Each structure stands twice: as C-alpha cells, then as structure tokens.
C-alpha cells in the first residue's frame, strides 16, 4: 500500500470511529430499542469498494479496537461489538467472493450478520437462548438499515472523486 493510500485508509478509519461514537452518543430512535443505523459500517463499505477485501477485513476490527481504547473500554460491550463485526466481516467476504451481489446485497447481509453476531455473544455471556427471540427484529432492522447504508454509499461513490488511483 502506498503512503497516499495508507493516509486515506487512516482517514476513513478515523471517520468510522468518530461516526460510531456519534451514534453511541446521539441515539437515533429507529425501529427497535438498540437498533442503530450503522453509519460506521457505511464507511466500511466505502473501504471495501475502493481498497478491496484484504483491507476491509481489518477495517472493522481496527475500528472496534480503537473505539474501545478511546472511550468504550474492554468490557462486555467490546466483546459484543467485536463478535458482531467479525461475523459481519466474514459474511461480507463470503458474499463478495462467491455471489454477484451488488453493494445493496453486501450491505444488507453484513448488517443482518452484525446483529446476529451480537445476539450470539449476549447468549453466550448470559447463558440464555431467550435472546434468540430478538433475531426476528434484528433481521428486519438489518434489511432496512443495510439498504439505507448501501443507498448512501452508492450515491456517495457516484458523486465523490475517485479516492484510489
């Protein structure tokens, strides 16, 4: 990766950390309690589009780690966030590699798996299956927020100057 690319990657990483913090601070009441738009994940989609799978796979994990170092700490929330991010990243890589899905399909599947990963971690931490009843709401909100984020990213990419040469 050239220095120019590295700087741009760093900028995008910083942007996603800031966006996740903004979303943490300013609760946007949508759909269900706890459901978020996933603005930080939208930046991840931009990274995927311009930098490819290799750099995208590190992006989410770096964002969660930086957020934990800067403000959230390494408590339960960290592990819940990390599990969601890891599962979403794996799903995104699989969808990109093995299907012809557009940015919409990639975003929706990632959003759904992000929520699912978090639910699985809560189920593990609290040793309960009851959280699984929340899966229905998570899938519905994942479809909606995933679609919205893809819509934003697609229009941004069309309007922005190409950030990778």
């Amino acid at each position, binding site marked *: 990766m050239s220095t120019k690319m590295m700087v741009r990657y760093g900028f995008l990483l910083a942007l996603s950390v800031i966006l996740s913090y903004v979303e943490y601070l300013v609760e946007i009441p949508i759909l269900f309690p706890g459901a978020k738009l996933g603005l930080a994940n939208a930046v991840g989609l931009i990274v995927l589009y311009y930098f490819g799978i290799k750099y995208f796979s590190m992006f989410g994990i770096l964002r969660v780690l930086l957020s934990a170092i800067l403000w959230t700490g390494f408590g339960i929330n960290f592990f819940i966030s990390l599990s969601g991010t890891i599962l979403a990243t794996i799903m995104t890589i699989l969808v990109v590699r093995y299907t012809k899905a557009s940015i919409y399909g990639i975003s929706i*599947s990632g959003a759904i798996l992000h929520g699912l990963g978090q639910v699985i971690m809560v189920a593990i931490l609290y040793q309960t299956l009851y959280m*699984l009843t929340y899966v229905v709401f998570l899938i519905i909100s994942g479809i909606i927020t995933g679609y919205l984020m893809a819509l934003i990213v697609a229009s941004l990419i069309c309007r922005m100057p190409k950030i990778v040469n």
Partner: protein
Amino acid sequence: MDISLKKNKTDLFIVIIATLVVVFFVVINLFYSNSNDNIISVYYNNNVIHTMYLNIDEEYIMEKESFPLLLDKMVIEVKDGRVRIKEEESPKHYCSIMGYQSQKGTSIICAPNSVMVVIEGYEDTGIDWTPGGVS
C-alpha cells in the same frame, strides 16, 4: 474486484432468504410457545432470584443495598398480563424503553444492572444449540 452499485437479482435473493428466516423464527415461536404457563423469571447475575406470574399483578422492587450490581433501585411491574421494567438506572434506559412485554419467550435484558426478566414458555426444539458451545 468490481462491486456493482446497482441492485440485482442476487440482492433480492438475499432479502428473500432473510425474510424466510424471519418467518421460520416466527412460526417456531408460535408453534412451540406453551399457553399454559405464565411464569416470569427474574434473573440477577445469572441466578433466578424471583418468580412472578403474568396473570397476577405485582410490583417487585430491587434495592441497591440488597443487589450491589444494580446501578440504582429497580422496579419490575406485572400489570394486565404484561411485564415491564418500570424504573431503572442505566446509561440509555433501554430496559425501561422496551416497555411492556407479554409474548412468551421474550426477555428484557438489562445488562448494565445484570438483570434479565424472562417470560417463560420457549420450549426446547431439540436442536443442540448450546450457547457455551458456539465459541
């Protein structure tokens, strides 16, 4: 790598699969919910500390003095066949924002207070889905 910015059939396929999973979970929930029990279990630090009944109105008060992991006093209310966390102290107040719940198998998880309120009735489907085994 070339990612298309225009919707295509694969995207629709992904949404259909997700919708089918939702329908599956809803059907399983309806099919396996047991209409005979009305038990609500209150968990504190992963242990059942109190049992309530959906058909009996009750207010259960948890004081911080007795339950040190609480951020402050918590009140759990059962009223008209529904349960809610009426009062609690947490950063985002998700537990009280969730409001009344009455569906069997539903849980209100208040992680910051280490409290979970579960409406019992979700039966084991026979699927070996052990939470501890996933990791």
